[in-house]
């Protein structure tokens, strides 16, 4: 291909992409409103989940999302280690339940529990690795998160684009807990 030919290809490519950027303001506003409504619904759904009993796990983080996407919950503990779909348990005892994927039946809620949580800062992140309806990027998906920490509940909700990792959607501090450092020695 000569220089002119390459230039034409580049111009067409740019024009094609930009065409996707302009116009459709109303459509995008409607989509954003629908997503906001969906994340409200997801947050309401999470609120309706059974509360942990007083002698139960002291930290439970839940992520709710819809059938259109596979979202993944990441919870980083005070040791700065993360529990997520590929690391099922952290050294502080955090455990993830089932990885909810596109073909997972039933509730679309992922959960990480710390049965004997360490004191310190917790960080919650959300990844959007895959669409279930094959919508092309950015394909934002709605989510809602709650973190039940003793008697407190922390909340976050919003959207995350396809193949984006929202590293921090929520952070919270646990003032008291059990830090079993002995188990970390020479581990």
């Amino acid at each position, binding site marked *: 291909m000569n220089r002119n030919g390459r230039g034409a290809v580049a111009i067409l*490519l740019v024009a094609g992409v930009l065409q996707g950027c302009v116009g459709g303001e109303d459509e995008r506003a409607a989509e954003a409103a629908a997503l906001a409504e969906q994340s409200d619904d997801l947050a309401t759904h999470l609120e309706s989940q059974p509360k942990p009993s007083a002698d139960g796990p002291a930290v439970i983080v839940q992520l709710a999302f819809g059938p259109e996407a596979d979202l993944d919950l990441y919870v980083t503990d005070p040791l700065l280690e993360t529990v997520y779909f590929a690391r099922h348990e952290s050294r502080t005892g955090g455990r993830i339940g089932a*990885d909810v994927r596109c073909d997972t039946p039933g509730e679309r809620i992922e959960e990480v529990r710390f049965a004997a949580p360490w004191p310190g800062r917790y960080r919650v992140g959300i990844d959007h*690795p895959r669409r279930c309806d094959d919508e092309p990027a950015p394909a934002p998906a709605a989510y809602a998160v709650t973190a039940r920490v003793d008697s407190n509940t922390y909340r976050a909700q919003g959207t995350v684009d396809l193949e984006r990792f929202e590293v921090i959607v929520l952070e919270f501090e646990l003032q008291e807990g059990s830090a079993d450092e002995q188990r*970390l020695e*020479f581990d």
Partner: protein
Amino acid sequence: MKSSYVVFAATLIAGLVAASIVHAAGFQGRVLDEQGEAIAGAMVTVRFGEPFQERTVFSDDAGGYAVGGLPAETSHRIRVRRIGWADLRSWDHQTSAEGMAPLDLTMIRHTDPAEVAAQLPANHWYALVLDKLTDEHDREQFVRQCTFCHQQGNRATRLVRDKEEWDKVLALMARMGAGLDAELAARVPELLNTAYDPATAVPALTQGWEDAHAFAPAPSPEVRRSIVDEYQLGGRSSVQHDMIVHPSGHIYSVDMTTDTLYRMDPRAPDGAREAFVIPTEELGLGGVLGSSALPSNSDMRVGPHSLQVDGDGAIWITLAVGNLLAKFDPEDSSFTMEPLPGGIYPHTLRVDDRGRIWYTIAVSNHVGMYDPGTGQHEVIRVPARGFGEEVTLRLIPFFMWLSQYVDLDVGGSEGGGLPTPYGIDFAPNGDVWFSQLNAHRIGRIDPDTFELTMIDTPFSAPRRMRFDSEGKLWIPGFSSNLLSRFDPETSEFVSYTLPIEPLGTETPYALNVDRRSDTVWICGTNSDTLISFETSTEEFTIYPLPTQVTYTRDIDFDKAGGVWTSNSNAPTWQIETGVPRVLRLIPGRNPDVSMSIPAGR
């Protein structure tokens, strides 16, 4: 400037003498089995301090060990490790101000072969995967991509997972820059699960384990006279990507995921660690690349990656995701930022004799040059492998601009399958040489005209390379398990297979040449080792390192012959103990070993 280095050297020697006086305490004794027989080649690791420091020595043929240079009147934890025996862990051992404290250590044989298999370095498990990859293209691709940032075959990677979970892991890795061809990616889950299935893996890995001394022979007496010092540096979200030895004797290390420059002083009893937070220029998480697939515990906004000292003692740093160079002044602890005029992802840098900063630019396929004296910048485009690749590379900046408005993935932090300029060094005549990792090429740049020449390597994945004093270029073949010597005068390569067992399982990420002896030191990145190669005799020596999952990326030397590197496996939690370390190997120099056991014992 030279006179100041003389002062530094004198200070260093004085410091070492002072340190040895302060640290006169230690432990000595024998490592024995339950029958009272000597265990040779056991690694005796003593930990003290907070953040911790560990010193490891090896037992000799009589089981004798001596670990000196420890702080007196201090509580220590001791671990003894030898493949075939259970790790011995013991707490609260007090050193004495009176000298070496006697301490015999008894190890118990493993009775479960699964426990023995778990002790083997990652490369042994990895061999089980490679055995199943009969196609050379697939094998090379798997090696290069699936050990890009971490060992393959460590505890975390050899979990048996369902296919869907593996698919998600592989997709995540691809977003981080280590993608596989779709056909290979589809086969990898079953490949890994069958290779790592304990039912077949353990018997395959432990044939002959009943005779522990023959199954895992002790290192040579020369190796067993070595000392390994490890310094915890940073926390569990840290990645100590590269480190250097400063002429002052300090060690500097860049923590890529927390945007921190660390300094420590190995002469100080406590290591005298200091942390300098690098200005992040108000960038968001992920810097100019955004947060497509950051580590979940990361606070990376500029991503310090590589560092070098200039002739004035200042430290230059590539800030990979900030797309910046930084200069750190050790005198006043200040940083000065220098934006790149072009290119994406400044990677590895070196400083030439004229004080110019040369650096590879990994994602956009450039080599950069910055002259702090004149302010001159050059960004040299490196050839792609074809028209399509060239178009892709040239469109990356456009896509990055466009990503402000439309969500796009520009290809991951290390360039994925793109050519990826990587290691860089100077020939004695001043020529600039660099590698192009994924394109399997090296290149030469004329330092005055910036004219560029590319050369195909007869092996895959040349990574971080260095010149010796004679002008020969030494190159590690990351996915080809070899060390290669290239002669720029004749353009001839001579390659040496790395002797790590099982053969073919090493992934040498980097090497450095100690130009005082022209000894080449190579990262045993997949086998928890450092490997030396004597260029005069063409002999390899393998030095085992005590921490499981020691993934190393660069090497430097101190004036006393210590070989320094950092353990930068990413993610960090896969490292035994879950924290990164900077470490020093003092080869063949433990004067206490063989003198430690009184006659007649």
